[in-house]
């Protein structure tokens, strides 16, 4: 790749960073997404754990889940927003007449997602330490980074899925941006280990990479993982899904151009 081509790639990716960043900065609700909802979930779950007098280890199990969930939710929203902002502005056709690829859209918005998700994560990590005396740095910087990176890749995966659904079913699928993560909450062992799930649900949990990343991080706190090679499995799955989603998004875009949905999203 020539230097000018690389420069162009970076500029196009930057366009999505620019858009998401300004839209987030100017929208009071996006501030609530960072501060209000994750804090409410964190505090209510943490205080419940205090109330039922959970031992510190079990409290840690739940706090890892709730903090991860908050960061993932915010980060995946940004990826979904890359398309949803254009849908809400009725400017979809202007976004797809330009010579950009899906990679620019996903990577650009993911960068803002990582920043916003990172803010949520570190705010809640600080709050965990001060309010509930739970230390997220016990595993060390390396494992923490590996876990966080995996978490953000999971967010990209969910955000991509939202974009695919919107490009396939139109506006009515935008609700997926808020509901898909709730489904993960049920399946991936956010508040409980996946071993307590019914057999079929356990099988579904095995197919979701977040399950492995949570098990990876929790094993530093003395929880024996249900599966082997959790980190490798998690990364393999999430990267496979992302590649598959890139392809499916291209298919969905092609289909939206065929059915006229792309134009309808601009009306």
């Amino acid at each position, binding site marked *: 790749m020539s230097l000018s081509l690389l*420069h*162009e790639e970076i*500029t*196009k990716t*930057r*366009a999505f960073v*620019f*858009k998401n960043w*300004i*839209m987030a900065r*100017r*929208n009071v609700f996006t501030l609530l997404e960072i501060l209000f909802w994750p804090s409410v979930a964190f505090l209510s779950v943490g205080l419940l754990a205090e109330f039922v007098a959970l031992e510190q280890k079990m409290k840690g199990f739940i706090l890892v889940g709730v903090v991860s969930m908050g960061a993932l939710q915010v980060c995946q929203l940004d990826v979904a927003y890359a398309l949803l*902002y*254009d849908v*809400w*502005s*009725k*400017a979809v*056709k*202007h*976004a*797809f*007449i*330009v*010579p*950009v690829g899906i990679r620019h859209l996903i990577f650009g918005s993911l960068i803002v997602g990582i920043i916003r998700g990172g803010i949520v994560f570190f705010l809640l990590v600080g709050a965990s330490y001060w309010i509930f005396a739970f230390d997220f740095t016990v595993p060390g910087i390396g494992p923490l980074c590996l876990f966080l990176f995996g978490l953000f890749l999971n967010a990209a995966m969910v955000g991509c899925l939202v974009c695919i659904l919107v490009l396939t079913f139109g506006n009515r699928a935008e609700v997926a941006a808020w509901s898909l993560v709730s489904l993960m909450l049920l399946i991936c062992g956010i508040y409980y280990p996946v071993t307590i799930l019914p057999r079929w649900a356990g099988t579904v949990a095995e197919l979701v990479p977040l399950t492995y990343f949570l098990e990876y991080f929790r094993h530093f706190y003395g929880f024996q993982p249900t599966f082997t090679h959790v980190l490798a499995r998690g990364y393999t799955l999430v990267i496979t899904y992302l590649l598959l989603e890139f392809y499916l998004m291209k298919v969905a875009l*092609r289909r939206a*151009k*065929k*059915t*006229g949905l*792309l*134009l309808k999203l*601009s009306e």
Partner: protein
Amino acid sequence: MKFAIEVKGLRKTFVSGWLRKREKTALKDLDLSVPQGALWGILGQNGAGKTTLLSVLSNLLTPEQGEVRVLGKNMPAHARKICRRINLCSGHANFLWSLTVRENLDYYAMLYGLSGRRRQQQIEHLIELFDLAEFVRVRFDELSTGTKQKLSLAKALINEPELLFLDEPTVGLDPDVARRIREYIQRLHDDKGTTILLTTHNMKEAETLCQQVAFLKDGTIKACGRPQELKRELRLGDTILVSFQGSLPVSTVSLLQNIRGVYGLQARNSSCTILVDDHKERLPQVLDVFVSNKIFINDIRIQESNLEDVFITFARGDH
């Protein structure tokens, strides 16, 4: 001749409904060739397929059948390369609501890969060209309709396109802003030689701006040509109303009817109505007949037919 757009046998059908599928054919075996550097108009009633055609040409819709070549390249096979060289401006402009005028231009410039000084220079140039300086820090959702439309045109020129699609660019604008937008379009075509394909419901706009117009009805092009040619083709012509002293002798009526380009003549007591192809060409000939036959003319009035008459004729299916 080099063509910016070559369309052969284009067909586009929309299918809706999950259980009961409904089909609507928007474009039927459409052929169109637009030369490079031309400013052409696509006219037609609502639902005629104008926006569908522009959307296929700009890679927002994929054709079901037929061949589409834009700037010499096949669409959608070479869509990415073509998209660098084209752009679209549509009426009822919609952009990201929270972004200011400058930020919107910045965003779209980046999407075209423009960076650094080149991007800034291009944005400054467009802000100046469209008199947007006082609005650069105003959010899109706070702009007036006219300014939104100016921004839409500015955005459409951000990549200096060789081919520009304008989908009803002056719809909903007050006459003053609409006139200014038309001036920008004309200037853009004259100065840069940009090929422009525009759709409009404003016949006067099409007549002033477009070198040629194509009438789209039920997904096919019913006629294509210069406005004057179309009027001639439909024999709509202009009307010359002459009032004179006395009555018109049969020999004079016959002389008038024999003038080339006279479609019809109706004579009454001391007036006659002559339908001609082009009043500018035929009026001197008509006057010659009156003068040579020593008929004293009291009054002459001319009623020009316009593109609107052509539009109505095609829309009603009279042709």
